């Protein structure tokens, strides 16, 4: 192909952004010691020295990190003592995501994340490049990846990536949905309790805040994180999969390839059901955690639709798992003894390519697992189940968070399901291997 580019460095501000919270902490520390600097104590000198060392280390790491595109490879070199040279074959790229944290947006930089398939899930990260360079660079890398594929004689995907927006979540609905979700209601209860105590006796309220500060903070963080991550989430269909963009402060754009989906789950919390809302989450292949991976990388569960109507969910599901079986057939009545709360929710169904189960106590959770992704099947029978002649069949996939289990079925039915599912899964595996 073209002659190799010259070596390029990352954006000079990268170490600062990469530091994330530490940077904010250091900045506050620096400011504090400047304010108190007139006292000139040795403490603040030590603090300054630490900050200085960290800054120098960051600068050095920036200095020795460089990257370039060599033929069909992306090469990244970094490290002083432990020199690391990464050669990332672009033809193996599964997806290239652009991620921008809050700090990155302040400094006008963006991170490019290249992913390969497989459970080892190697990632190459260019953190960070200038924001305006990110999109063109992504397009160029994608084009190279496509070109590399062309070399190998595979059909060439469109270089000009066209997207068709499927859905965007309105902010009002997102806020409403969070307010009546389980986390939201918890936060409201805490706030309401605080207000009531504050009205009754301000002194007691201050005490409660003092004692439960960490707890209150956690709940609020949960609510905030959900809002921040799912703000203005939009889902678009592109030739290489589903494009997911979202974020209020930290922006992320990622691509979910249909073949990578291990399982899909639809969650319907109690109050949402009255409104006909549901939430759609996709489980991707779980991978080993490696250090330096961002929060988003560690989380195998991706929310495709934070809140939406059943009809919309069905439409999206059609793209992710086609040929979904109807979920029906309640378990035998004696299962009431074993799972009184779950009983109403329990059901399962299967087609030639997919198994679906529902469960949940207060919220209803429906899980679809494609049979070609089945890693193993397990039939488990506890003491109570044995007495009631019931059994549970677990369908294990490589996803981490979504679990399909055919709960509390009649023993004969469970045995039949086990045999049938293992046969169907085998057929699917063979189909894929060919």
């Amino acid at each position, binding site marked *: 192909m073209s002659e190799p580019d010259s070596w390029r460095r990352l954006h000079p501000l990268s170490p600062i952004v990469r530091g994330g919270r530490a940077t904010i902490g250091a900045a506050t520390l620096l400011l504090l010691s400047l304010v108190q600097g007139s006292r000139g104590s040795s403490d603040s000198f030590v603090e300054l020295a630490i900050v200085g060392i960290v800054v120098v280390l960051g600068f050095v790491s920036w200095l020795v990190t460089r990257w370039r595109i060599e033929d069909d490879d992306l090469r990244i070199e970094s490290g002083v003592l432990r020199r690391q040279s990464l050669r990332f074959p672009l033809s193996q790229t599964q997806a290239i995501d652009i991620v921008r944290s809050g700090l990155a947006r302040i400094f006008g930089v963006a991170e490019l994340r290249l992913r390969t*398939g497989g459970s080892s899930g190697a990632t190459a990260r260019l953190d960070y490049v200038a924001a305006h360079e990110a999109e063109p660079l992504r397009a160029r890398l994608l084009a190279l990846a496509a070109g590399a594929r062309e070399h190998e004689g595979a059909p060439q995907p469109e270089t000009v990536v066209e997207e068709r927006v499927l859905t965007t979540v309105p902010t009002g609905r997102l806020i409403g949905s969070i307010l009546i979700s389980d986390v939201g209601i918890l936060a409201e209860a805490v706030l309401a309790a605080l207000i009531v105590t504050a009205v009754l006796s301000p002194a007691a309220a201050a005490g409660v805040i003092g004692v439960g500060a960490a707890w209150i903070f956690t709940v609020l963080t949960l609510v905030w994180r959900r809002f921040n991550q799912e703000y203005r989430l939009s889902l678009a269909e592109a030739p290489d999969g589903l494009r997911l963009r979202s974020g209020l402060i930290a922006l992320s754009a990622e691509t979910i390839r249909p073949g990578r989906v291990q399982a899909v789950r639809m969650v319907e919390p109690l109050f949402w059901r009255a409104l006909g809302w549901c939430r759609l989450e996709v489980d991707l*292949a779980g991978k080993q955690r490696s250090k330096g991976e961002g929060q988003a990388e560690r989380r195998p569960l991706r929310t495709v639709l934070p809140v939406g109507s059943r009809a919309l969910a069905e439409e999206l599901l059609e793209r992710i798992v086609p040929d979904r079986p109807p979920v029906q057939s309640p378990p035998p009545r004696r299962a009431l003894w074993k799972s009184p709360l779950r009983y109403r929710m329990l059901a399962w169904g299967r087609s030639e390519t997919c198994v679906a189960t529902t469960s949940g106590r207060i919220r209803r959770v429906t899980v679809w697992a494609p049979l070609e992704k089945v*890693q193993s099947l397990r039939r488990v029978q506890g003491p109570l189940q044995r007495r009631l002649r019931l059994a549970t069949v677990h369908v294990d996939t490589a996803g981490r968070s979504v679990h399909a289990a055919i709960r509390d079925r009649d023993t004969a039915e469970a045995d039949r399901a086990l045999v049938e599912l293992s046969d169907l899964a085998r057929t699917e595996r063979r189909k894929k291997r060919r």
Partner: protein
Amino acid sequence: MSVGEAMNESWRRPSLRLLVLRRLEVAALALAALIAAGVVAALGNTVVGLACLGGVFVLGLGAERFVSRRFHAWGYAEREDDLLVRRGVMFLRLSVVPYGRMQFIDLTAGPLERSFGLATVRMHTAAAASDARIPGLDREEAARLRDRLAELGEAQAAGL
């Protein structure tokens, strides 16, 4: 063994030496407890001590029964495309793990197992929940099973 009936297979079992090992473990524990109870009986309150002796004896018998039932619950069968593993007395479990899904195989042997010439074979898949562990295999059988599984896994590898 209702779990076994689900798949009408000829089950293979762990080595009988595993049962001996488990019984010895129980016996060692019981002996220690018996000695303690005997010391109580000799030095302190004789009635309480004798009651303890009886209790330990009954508990030991119960443990022995549990251990041997658990041993007999273990079983595995190599089918054409997948490995079946069954186990458990209280919770009956039967795993179906296709060879094609295998990521890697572990063969481990702790000090006790090793002194009895035993080993544990474990098959890992990409799913964390998969549970295919067979303890207490003869060393030759363990090696054979490992090689056979590796071979089959390679032949049928299906990726993620």
